[in-house]
């Protein structure tokens, strides 16, 4: 009698699936010291869609201080999330640049000299950049900084990170929309910009500079801070608000932005116009453009677009666009020594796991056995045999933890494989991962996770400096 179990994946197979996209970055130390408030980060992705529609990005700002990390959850394809993952950090970095640096960069481009590098990317080999569109993207970005240069009134004002983040998000979304309206003589590019505009993506981005942590969120991904209490226990601090139907303030916002007679139709069955789960997103011009504009662009667009029923379909009760915005909500948090790590993840994770569990699992993983109460013999009578027994037990408990070299992978293990007791169940894990593509989407969404670990010593030193 054959049991379905024989189709299950073996543990090494499970591991190779879970490890395929894992990436770790450790901030390099110089002369034995790491002066960054970030120790490093782990990230990973587990696809449910094929191809995966989530994207992730991480980069160090080279012309200003700080590091940028973000997760992007695409829908209706991956074109938009891909574009946002490539472009958003450049928009943010440019928004943060002082006037002189902008001038310097513009002069370099003007005279054909080498550009100052703006970002250092920390990329997994699977995280690609589209070569074809780079010129187009660059030109849009350049127009943006040229405007920033022109807008400068001469007074050197401190750049506000919050404002910079909001501007960058809005500007990129605007550029995506414009590029699609203008089109491109190259038919491949033309189709690409339209696919970007007609698909959508949410974004959750963290900017860390010393003890200043800003989170800009658009949509339903989440940023969660892991805080270790004095007694060693873990608690979760949410640094972003979900922009969906569960958020009263978002419902309120939508109702205010549209006439009273749309109050019932603007959110139906917990979805925007009865269709879209996130209430804020990049792209998705079907929820932003006027009907006329949509029709015009689709008609003049390539045939592939015309054949696509989804793009042609106009949402019901579509009276007063735009219904959707990419404007992020920005929260600020000043890091304290007890803030040990930050988890950025797409809704695929938060659907399956409670935030408290996420923080506890990562916290226990990162601190490993060091935060188990250290053993001290003190004045007790302990034999070598007893001690050995105790240590092997502790080790066994921990060894399951250390199988994963990556905190994000560890979290995915739990997210996919947790049984009702909160322990990873191998059978369940391999069942979930063996699901055929079309079924996988029913059980879970794409999961993308970045776990950023903070350097408590550096954070503490900042604090002492201030006192």
């Amino acid at each position, binding site marked *: 009698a054959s049991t379905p179990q024989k189709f299950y994946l073996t543990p090494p197979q499970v591991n190779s699936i879970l490890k395929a996209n894992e990436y770790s970055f450790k901030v390099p130390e110089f*002369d034995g010291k790491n002066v960054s408030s970030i120790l490093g980060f782990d990230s990973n992705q587990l696809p449910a869609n094929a191809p995966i529609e989530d994207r992730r990005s991480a980069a160090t700002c080279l012309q200003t201080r700080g590091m940028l990390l973000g997760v992007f959850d695409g829908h209706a394809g991956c074109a938009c999330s891909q574009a946002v993952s490539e472009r958003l950090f450049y928009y943010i970095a440019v928004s943060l640049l002082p006037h002189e640096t902008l001038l310097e960069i513009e002069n370099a481009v003007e005279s054909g000299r080498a550009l100052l590098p703006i970002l250092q990317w920390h990329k997994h080999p699977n995280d690609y950049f589209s070569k074809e569109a780079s010129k187009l993207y660059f030109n849009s970005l350049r127009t943006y900084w040229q405007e920033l240069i022109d807008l400068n009134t001469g007074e050197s004002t401190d750049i506000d990170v919050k404002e910079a983040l909001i501007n960058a998000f809005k500007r990129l979304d605007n550029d995506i929309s414009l590029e699609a309206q203008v089109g491109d003589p190259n038919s491949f590019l033309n189709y690409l910009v339209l696919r970007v505009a007609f698909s959508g993506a949410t974004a959750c981005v963290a900017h860390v500079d010393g003890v200043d942590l800003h989170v800009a969120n658009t949509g339903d991904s989440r940023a969660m801070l892991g805080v270790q209490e004095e007694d060693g226990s873990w608690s979760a601090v949410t640094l972003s608000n979900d922009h969906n139907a569960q958020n009263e303030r978002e419902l309120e916002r939508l109702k205010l932005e549209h006439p009273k007679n749309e109050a019932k139709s603007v959110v139906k069955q917990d979805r925007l116009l009865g269709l879209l789960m996130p209430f804020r997103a990049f792209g998705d011009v079907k929820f932003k453009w006027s009907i006329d504009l949509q029709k015009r662009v689709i008609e003049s667009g390539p045939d592939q677009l015309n054949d696509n029923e989804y793009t042609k379909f106009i949402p019901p009760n579509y009276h007063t666009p735009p219904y959707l915005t990419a404007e992020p909500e920005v929260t600020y948090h000043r890091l304290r020594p007890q803030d040990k790590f930050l988890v950025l993840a797409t809704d695929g994770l938060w659907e399956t796991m409670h935030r408290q569990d996420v923080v506890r699992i990562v916290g226990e993983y990162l601190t490993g056995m060091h935060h188990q109460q250290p053993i001290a013999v003190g004045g007790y009578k302990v034999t070598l045999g007893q001690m050995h027994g105790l240590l092997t037990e502790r080790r066994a408990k921990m060894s399951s933890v250390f199988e994963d070299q990556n905190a994000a992978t560890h979290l995915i293990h739990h997210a996919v494989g947790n049984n009702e007791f909160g322990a990873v169940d191998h059978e369940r894990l391999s069942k979930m991962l063996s699901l055929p593509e079309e079924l996988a989407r029913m059980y879970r969404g794409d999961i993308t996770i970045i776990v950023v670990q903070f350097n408590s010593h550096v954070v503490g030193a900042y604090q002492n400096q201030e006192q």
Partner: protein
Amino acid sequence: STSAAEAHSIALPAQAQVVICGGGIMGTSVAYHLSKMGWQDIVLLEQGRLAAGSTRFCAGILSTARHSSIEQKMADYSNKLYHQLEQETGIQTGYLRTGSISLAQTQDRLISLKRINSRLNVVGIPSEIISPKKVAELHPLLNVHDLVGAMHVPEDAVVSSADVALALASAASQNGVQIYDRTSVLHVLIKKGQVTGVETDKGQIECQYFVNCAGQWAYELGLSNEEPVSIPLHACEHFYLLTRPWDTPLQSNTPTIVDADGRIYIRNWQGGILSGGFEKNPKPIFTEGKNQLEIQNLREDWDHFEPLLSSLLRRMPGLETLEILKLVNCPETFTPDMKCIMGESPVVQGYFVLAGMNSAGLSLGGGAGKFLAEWMVYGYPSENVWELDLQRFGALQSSRTFLRHRVMEVMPLIYDLKVPRWDFQTGRQLRTSPLYDRLDAQGARWMEKHGFERPKYFVPPNKDLLALEQSKTFYKPDWFDIVESEVKCCKEAVCVIDMSSFTKFEITSTGDQALESLQYLFSNDLDVPVGHIVHTGMLNEYGGYENDCSIARLTKRSFFMISPTDQQVHCWAWLNKYLPKDSNLLLEDVTWKYTVQQSLEWRQFSRSCFGMGITSTVSEEKEIYSAWDMASPGGHLLVRSGLTAEETIEYILPANLPHYTSRALHASQSAATFSSALNLIGPRAVDVLSELSYAPMTPDHFPTLFCKEMSVGYANGIRVMSMTHTGEPGFMLYIPIEYALHVYNEVMSVGQKYGIRNAGYYALRSLRIEKFFAFWGQDLNTLTTPLECGGESRVKLEKGIDFIGRDALLQQKQNGVYKRLVMFILDDHDTDLDLWPWWGEPIYRNGKYAGKTTSSAYSYTLERHVCLGYVHNFSEDSGEEQVVTTDFVNRGEYEIDIAGHRFQAKAKLYPVTSFFSHKRRKDDVELSDFHGK
């Protein structure tokens, strides 16, 4: 017993001859030996209390079973010293001759032990390889079921290291050494590169000599001077366990156990057990230089200790019921190459160092203190300690990050299997040739020397080598065939080897100063026609080799000198010490690309010269200029050699710049840095070069040992020398860094039709050893003279100059030599099945120990292994060294002992020329002439 070593609490003396910093076993040992040798005016400063640092926490195991001969000698001396110390001083040191047993869980480990055993026996330290059964008899508690054998050294001992330090301090104090505790050295005062005193928290002391024995703080202390002294070492946490006594205490003479495969040591301690080890995942500490007066007992970390505890209980299952007293955590200091650091700073005269003991401080302390004291008093230690010399390192090994990463590899290595040709994996790619990426892409595997990456061999694209761990072997290595094909190519066609790592200096003067000083510094006659190359030793006053190099005479007044890679610091220091302080003499290091600096004056100057470039190098007050025509492409050299300084000035300077003529200004051919070197080896090297240069390269036009500047491909001004370091025909090309890739590409593409390929240092090594080319640092050292190693032809006693070492050589020539470097060809050795020789194998003559090998390689030409080594003539009765004559060497029957197995060997005093077809080398002719006399 602290009262015995009386520590002064009164004011410090205003001056002393020597100030020693550090009251641990190293500092007290140096003080003890200096005072024994008759030095009077010595002050020892300790920041905390005497013997309170690592010395206090030392496990107290004295082991003579060491992998290196020099460490073996130091440990043997320490053992003898500590043995009689109690009697000498009346202070109890806890010395107990327990013996030690080193266990082998694997055959490879047993081979390693057998090699040590062979070496211990020949120096008179009793030891034997024993069976597991015998182990069980010697130590009742051991589980021996997983052992394949062991080595028993019955005279090894345990001792209380803190008490040893106190006893040494007490004896030193009685000999007049003044000891002050709770006194911190802040920094050392230096004037003109010479120690003048120390600044302490209790005032200044003027002194001539300073000895840094500051243990794990030695690095910090070295950097605290205005002129920093780089002492590369770093601490790691080290853990050992103490138990309460057994109900029936172990016999006090129970042997110490070293279970290297289990990464632990175990000794009897006050009726219980002391056991620690060297784990795979060490915890480096104090990277940022956090200082504390005495090392506090750092936090115990049981989870970290767990693997070692498991290993201990596996070895001694009976310990389960024994009660824990505590887990001690004491930092130990490690160095980048697992060898301790001693000797004089290359930058500050009178600044001596003894530190970085890699957990063997107690075993090495006595001997190390003695050698350092000898070094200070007599100018040389009585043994060759080059491998421990501070000058083997440069400032480049001093980065905290490098040290932190490297010691994490070094600490586990203490108990790892030590196999031939081991390369460190951490701290790599620090210095690389401009061709590194090109060579790497072609399959180069790398080794590192002095921070410089050098290719070992090139793995062909279709060939797979073993993974690092599996490749460890005492037998035939997996790269055997690869190196064979490289060697064959060197013999039959042509190979290119990147030799950029070699140390390169240029010495230039306005008048005859360069020639005069070099004639004084080197034993061979350097007054040769311009363009000639001379092989010569740089000797010390005892006639020993301080360096062995090749010197090319570039012009009448400038010389180009090539030495081994690791000579960079040592040779520079030596030259600086002995070259006259003369502003008309310039020494520059052209190994590194930044050695030629372009000063501000350069720019002003070149502008005023209207398109003429003057490069200048500034070294202290000395300046040197060379004139280049900047207007012509490539900056054509305007001034040819042979012009006097005055002529040069007239030639290049417009008349309106008279004030420059007052400067020491002269032309030098070397405005560019020759920081890249390619060695073209093989009979077809001539064809490749002549095709690339359109210049005749036949022996008539370009004789052997000749140097010319010529163009290669598009690149002009390449320094070509008709010599190789292997004895094969070929050329060295010294190439300015910016041309390196171009020249390499040209050579490779033109060389295609001659069958050119890349080769690495393993091929080079095989070639040079089969040709009996001795290398400094391996076969030659400060205690070996040219007469002892067939270098007579490189000594010109009658050149009319009383060069350094000449008296010693004259005397030696008269009296005869006491040792002789001999080449051995192994006869009954099966390359596929037998253990390979390495170095340090005992040589037996007519069944009696006669010396040790210094290097070895497989000769693909002879199809035999070749070892080089020194043959001594020990008297039958007294064991004293007697004269070694050619006859003595020739009349012996020889055997080489590899891990206890003796192989018959043929001894040769001169290269086996009949085997080699190429006889055009001047050297060979010289040697065969000599042989014929």
